[in-house]
């Protein structure tokens, strides 16, 4: 299955000219603001939970509830109440209470997601996992045992003294929780060579829609695999056992700048064709470079049309250097200027720059629509050129960056809703999606579907597969109480303009 996995480019429908629904895609829709706020009366579920869990673990005031209505892209519906469980037992209590009250449940980590996954689409109970932060390392078995609220980076920090590392590295890893990473099957630059979050899961514990606790491993039916990337729509992941690996002994970093985005993409295709398997291979265009440079002042090439940032790594220095030389040669033959990072500090600052791209775009325009397309590497240069040309033709500010090594690109349309037409933004987004599909790509690489990509999902999945996904959903959550309005469009919900 896993039609939306990173790097997968399986077939898609090619129906054209469909316009995504506004509210599902835009940041800050004003349609859902302030329902039920200001009312002094506590929701019966809030009363019930305060009694069951104690007031310390339940938020009921209007201001506090509002704080749990959004993620890093979408403003959602204010929850009827928020529970802050400290154990799986607390989660069970909360789920059973919500079930009895007939209130939907939305799981939430640090709300750094980019698809609206943690933003409720209707009045709900939000379960915030930020207090479930137990973490232990088993160095002999090379495992980390984590509760859902553990900060992603904390896993590697705890593993490092044992000579171990947890490779998945989403840009928000200082903020994001492992529960959210599991729910979205998060990726990051390291995932090109080392795999995404789901590839590190040995076992999961989750609470189902009835409040029953399940412990899953990867054998027999891979039910853990089903929960990974399910965005809280099949169950609430409470704990996980993660595989740790040993960090590479040597890492080398280079930065290459190119006159045009197309040349940068060509260099990627030819480096990989030549046999290089970089640990990380990232791309950003001129507007991205300048937005980051305004923030960090690390000396990135402001005049370049595009740049690549590359790590090669391994335990054999000679091989690492050889791979870097392959990448370097590919960059130069595509017209790139190459600079190697001289020190670890310089490399670290370049990677901090890369992690800052997405939020730094806020410096250009206050709002954006982000895309998360994955296309075959053989067509990368055509795709980035076509996307760039669409941006120019539209008159809107369009930027591109992404994990280009595995064909995962994030075209972002940046706009100011006070002065620019949201219709035009939607039209451009749709054109970009069509480019990806026409070249055999898919529409979501790593951010998840959430509510933002729901319409894209409707286009990308054939009706038979969608019906099968709904069967799975109904088997585990027949009442549709878990994160409703996410991941799965209703059959026939796709718009046919």
């Amino acid at each position, binding site marked *: 299955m896993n039609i939306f996995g990173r790097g997968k480019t399986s077939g898609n429908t090619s129906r054209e000219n469909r316009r995504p629904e506004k509210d599902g895609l835009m940041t800050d829709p004003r349609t859902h603001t302030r329902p039920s706020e200001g009312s002094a009366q506590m929701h019966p579920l809030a009363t019930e939970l305060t009694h069951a869990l104690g007031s310390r673990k339940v938020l009921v005031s209007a201001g*506090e509830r509002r704080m749990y209505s959004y993620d890093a892209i979408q403003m959602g519906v204010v929850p009827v109440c928020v529970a802050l469980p400290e154990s799986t037992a607390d989660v069970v209590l909360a789920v059973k209470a919500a079930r009895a009250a007939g209130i939907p449940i939305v799981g939430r980590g640090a709300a750094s997601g980019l698809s609206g996954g943690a933003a409720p689409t209707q009045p709900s109970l939000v379960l915030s996992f930020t207090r479930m932060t137990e973490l232990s390392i088993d160095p002999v078995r090379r495992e980390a045992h984590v509760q859902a609220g553990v900060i992603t980076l904390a896993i590697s920090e705890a593993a490092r003294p044992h000579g171990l590392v947890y490779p998945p590295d989403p840009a*928000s890893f200082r903020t994001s929780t492992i529960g959210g990473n599991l729910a979205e099957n998060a990726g990051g630059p390291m995932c090109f060579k080392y795999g995404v979050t789901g590839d590190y899961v040995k076992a999961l514990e989750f609470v189902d829609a009835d409040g029953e606790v399940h412990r899953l491993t990867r054998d027999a039916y891979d039910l853990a695999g089903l929960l990974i990337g399910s965005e809280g729509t099949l169950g609430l992941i409470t704990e996980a056992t993660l595989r740790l690996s040993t960090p590479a002994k040597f890492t080398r970093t280079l930065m290459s700048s190119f006159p045009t985005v197309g040349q940068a993409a060509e260099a990627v295709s030819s480096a990989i064709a030549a046999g290089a398997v970089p640990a990380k291979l990232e791309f950003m265009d001129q507007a991205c470079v300048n937005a980051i440079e305004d923030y960090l002042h690390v000396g990135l090439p402001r005049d370049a049309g595009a740049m690549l940032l590359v790590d090669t790594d391994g335990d054999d220095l000679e091989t690492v250097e050889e791979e870097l030389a392959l990448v370097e040669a590919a960059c130069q033959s595509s017209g790139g200027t190459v600079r190697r990072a001289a020190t670890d500090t310089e490399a670290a600052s370049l990677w901090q720059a890369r992690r800052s*791209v997405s*939020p730094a775009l*806020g410096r250009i325009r*206050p709002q954006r629509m982000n895309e998360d397309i994955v296309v075959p590497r053989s067509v990368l240069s055509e795709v980035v050129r076509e996307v760039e040309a669409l941006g120019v033709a539209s008159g809107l500010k369009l930027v591109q960056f992404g994990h280009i090594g595995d064909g995962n690109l994030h075209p972002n349309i940046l706009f100011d809703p006070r002065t620019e037409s949201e219709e035009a933004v939607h039209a451009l987004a749709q054109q970009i999606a069509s480019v990806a599909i026409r070249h055999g790509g898919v529409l979501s690489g790593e951010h998840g579907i959430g509510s933002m990509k729901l319409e894209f999902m409707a286009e990308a999945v054939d009706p038979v597969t969608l019906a099968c996904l709904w069967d799975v959903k109904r088997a585990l959550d027949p009442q549709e109480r878990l994160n409703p309005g996410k991941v799965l469009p209703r059959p026939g919900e796709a718009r046919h303009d």
Partner: protein
Amino acid sequence: MKNEIALHHPDAQGLLMAHAVDACVHCGFCLPACPTYQVLGDEMDSPRGRIILMKEVLEGGLPLFEATPHLDRCLGCVGCVTACPSGVPYGELITSFRGWSEPQRSRPVIQRLTRAAVLTMLPRPALFRVGANVGRFAKPLAPLLPQALRAPLDLLPNTVQPAQPLPEFTPAQGVRRGRVSFLSGCAQQVLTPNFNAATVRVLSRNGVEVLIPPAQGCCGAAAMHTGARPLALEQAWRNLNAFAPDEVDAIVSNAAGCGAGLKEYPMLLAGEGAANEVRAETLAAKVRDISVYLAELSADGGLEPFMPTSRPIKVAYHDACHLAHAQGVKAEPRALIRSIPGVTLAEVRQGDLCCGSAGTYNIEQPDLANQLGDLKAKNVIATGADYVVSGNVGCHTQLQSHLARLGSPIKVLHTIELLDLAYRGEL
């Protein structure tokens, strides 16, 4: 973030707040940089949460009282500004918001009295000295007093050091290389008089004339950050009239909070008339932290050589928030410390995190201030350093008090005191 703040508040301060909220893309990169989010772990006690709370209140969607408990917990350390890729001027937002909201709030009597007492005494060294002397004798009674009165007593020194009055003019030694005006601060004249004396000695030794305009007063940062905008404006006027930025190379401050306060005058005076806005800009542009001024001097012909230390010494540098985050000054003090022969520099773990002092925070949020102070002291102790130095009187007092509580022998100094001791061969 889309907002309608400007519609509800079309004045200069309202536009300032609207622009700050505009810039926020609610990505959450600020969360790990926020001391209160680190301690409490709840969204409403994070910068992102607070920005949205302020937006909601300003738009009329949320009553002020729903937001104030969480806004009051903000230290104003602006660690989030350093962490913010999209460039949200959070410091301007919270300061302007506090100035706007304070007049609408009704605080308990004891809180109002403490606030008034602090804002009256801090800026007046003579009065503060009397207060500190009286408070010293009240210290043994502290356990009997309510928390609101215990916290300010905690901050007072056990012994009040004699005043060290400084001349209005100190000539340069040797060839004259520069001429600066010095902001002598207020509370630190009583709490740590050696900071200023050491500053003048080091500047003069390096060929810099030091003017201390007698008409100057408190920079107004404490008033500004607690929402007492009229008082802050009054204090700013006094300094705008006392300092003549065109006649000196720099206006030097040795207190991170005060230097940052002077640099905030353009924000404070926004909407007070175009000519005044220009005056504020001109003054702010001349403000340098002592470490930055010395680093510039060092780059432009070097500093007088330091005496080597008598034995190898390890110095931990503590980043004051109002230097590292508010003014972006991190490299200069480190370079100065490293330049003393025999000194090695140690970094403090979680160095970006506030020590919990933050102006009047110790008094108004003693529990959080204590938790953060304890965390900071433990991280400092873990460096195994002989000295910990910082560039701010508030951090200095907080470090002293929490290191002492943990029984640590680590000595606390201002960066300039360390340099001064090195010149005197006393390290």
